[in-house]
């Protein structure tokens, strides 16, 4: 099972993240809804979906 933690650790390990978190007082977890990518012009494309 790949939890993708290895990839994120390469970018920021727990120590570095903990240092950044020391000044972070947030408790927010904000859901993000993707923007609509469709348009009236989309029919002419083999376009990627969102």
């Amino acid at each position, binding site marked *: *099972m*790949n*939890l*993708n*933690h290895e*990839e*994120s*650790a390469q*970018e*920021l390990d*727990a120590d*570095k*993240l*903990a240092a*950044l*978190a*020391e000044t*972070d*007082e*947030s*408790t*927010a*977890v*904000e*859901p*993000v*809804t*993707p*923007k*609509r*990518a*469709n*348009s*009236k*012009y*989309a*029919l*002419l*494309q*083999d*376009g*990627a*979906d*969102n």
Partner: protein
Amino acid sequence: MHQPRILLINPPIWNVYAPHLAVPLLAAVMRRHGWQVSSLDLSIEQTDWLLSSEGLAELLPKAERRLGEIPAQERRAHEEILAVFGDTVQRMDAARAALKSRDILAAPDAFTEAATVVRNGLSCVSASFPGLKFDLRGNFSCFSHRRSDSVLEAAGSADRNVYGWALERRPIPGLDDADLAVVGISVSADTQLIAALTTARHIKLRRPDVHVVMGGNLTTRMVSRWTEEHPFFAYVDSFVSYEGEDALPALCDRITGADDRTIPGLLERDGRGGLLRNPAAMVDVSDLPTPDFDGLPLDRYFAPGPVLPLQASRSCAWDCAFCSIPFASNKFRIRKPEQVVHDMATLAAKHGSDSFMFVDEIMTLTSLRGVSRELNDGGHDLFWYGETRFSKGLDDELASALRRSGCRRLDLGLESYNQRVLDLMRKGTKVADIEPSLQALLGNKVPVHLFCMTGFPGETREEALRTQEFADQALQRSVEEFDVPYSTAANGPFILDVLSPVGERPDLFGVELIPPGEGEDLAFDLDYTVAEGLTQQDAAELTSGGPGGSAGAAFHRGTWIGDAEEWSFLWALAESELPARRLTAPAAPRLLMDTTGVVRLAPGVQGRVSADGTGLLLHVPSCDALLDVPSQWSPLLDGRAHGAADLWRAFESPRTAAATLARLAAHGAVTFEAGAFGEQEHTPWYAAQPHDVLDARPDGSCLLVSAETGQRVRVSAAGRLLWLLTADGASEAELADRSRLPAAQRRLLLENLAGHRVIAAASLAPGLLELPRVAA
């Protein structure tokens, strides 16, 4: 005396939320002409069947077989869809029925559930054919609509072509009728071309004596290129360019020998490898009868209408540089407003529908004023929407009249919020007129839809972002300032249409066209380079929907039918609460487990062991999650209760087992009984749910995207830290020690992370983390 019959067909794929207007327009003309008419919307008939429990059940063995035929790198995505297939077959008919009932407008949760099942069904159809992306918009496949040879190859394939496969199982009815003399196929968009030729072949094989004629917007574009006999004549006897209302009766009269007058826009073979082409003529739109929807399955479209299409005008009065509508639609003409409202009242009385969509390329102020006046003066209780453009005349007085006349949505071709770009586009809009029009509409409770275009040749990144920001703010103001939650916006990339002014004279716009690929004789949009400004690739990136768009199991990436304009209109009409895009599953009970506890799969959860035997895919319908867990959990597939101690024996690490069980329980994938477990003995335990890290920023914040549910959340450094520290499971004490976050912040964050299923929270008996040794 027997009258001959004509069969009029709208092939897939066209809008599945409402009928296409072409067939009803021609049906009305041909009935007035004295012919028997059969109307067939093959687009909705096929789509509705493919997305039925019956259709999907027939596809399932085909999708299963494909698993052994596809490349290794595609198998995972295929297996994800197979894991959801059985559940989708079971639930699809109820979902379809729900979406077609007006009750759904007052039931947002029911909509979300039904739309989720339909979205998964689209993936199931896709998985049954090579290269197919069945998305109700393009349905792109392993065949190319840009190449005549590929279109013809598709027409002969019932195995790889979804339309051919469906026609074999559900043939076109009535082809054995001796009265049938002509079949007309209307092809408006390139998305219909493969199905159109497949249908023409299907008919010709059964009735070679019947005359097959093809018309429509795409047909007009297509045949304008032909200089000699084309291979499509193998299945099509003639083609009609531009409008069909005058041409079709004339063609039918010639076929029956009743008359031999000139048939406007007709293209035929000359018998020597060449073509005979008649000039087109313009139809008098004031002379047309009310469109005739008889024979169309108005209860089968994927929105609770029917929302009936009408025209208040034809073609477009403007000449925007990016658009080719004037090329294929003749000159602009307006139908008299009193005729338009008569059409509406007639159809409302006949079909019991109160909702209409004007499919005009653009409704002018003259049409908007005239139609709203007639509706208001006549005291009609009807609802409608249409498309127009920003202009000085779209003021408070008109907006008020529109609202009173039942207008519940106006689509506006904003394109850009920069005067320089609008001028480059030859749009004819003044930026100064946009804000007053917007305020007038929203102030009168008329929701808007903003069409934005990114990457018109010469546009800069700053200009594109300014338009996006304006659209974003307009939607926010619609909700917060005007209490109109139904406004929407869409941002599409500039598409270079070869028949548009830019395509005709690219040099005037700093554009160089890239020739189409080898054999792409039907390519009407081309790649291009620009002398300055955003490139084609820039435009694609800026309109891709933001970071993280591709995450999630394969079936999570399908079309969300709530994005259809018909749904936005109907929700506005009913003043509905807007539904969520994702299922909000009821909070699962917090896992309580000890060494004597038992677990079993929750009702409705279905699973399959991956073909390589390394994992187990579990689909949880209540939250539409696809969980990938180690194959050691496969004993659960028998549906019986299993002791935690027995399950633990298969694992080397008790923490891995505990973390997975916590994750399963948090998604409601399992139910459990905790044995003799006491609350006082518990250890609070947290385990991360799998997520991808995207859009990571220097302050440590990032977007966490769940591959299991497709959900995306933004967390700050502290939230991301706690998620990271729970990778292999962690107790509260361990998190306190390793995170160094203040206790209050840590507890609140853990609660919020668990609430959004970013992590799983559980209460475990201490012995459970030692179990393999204990059990041994």
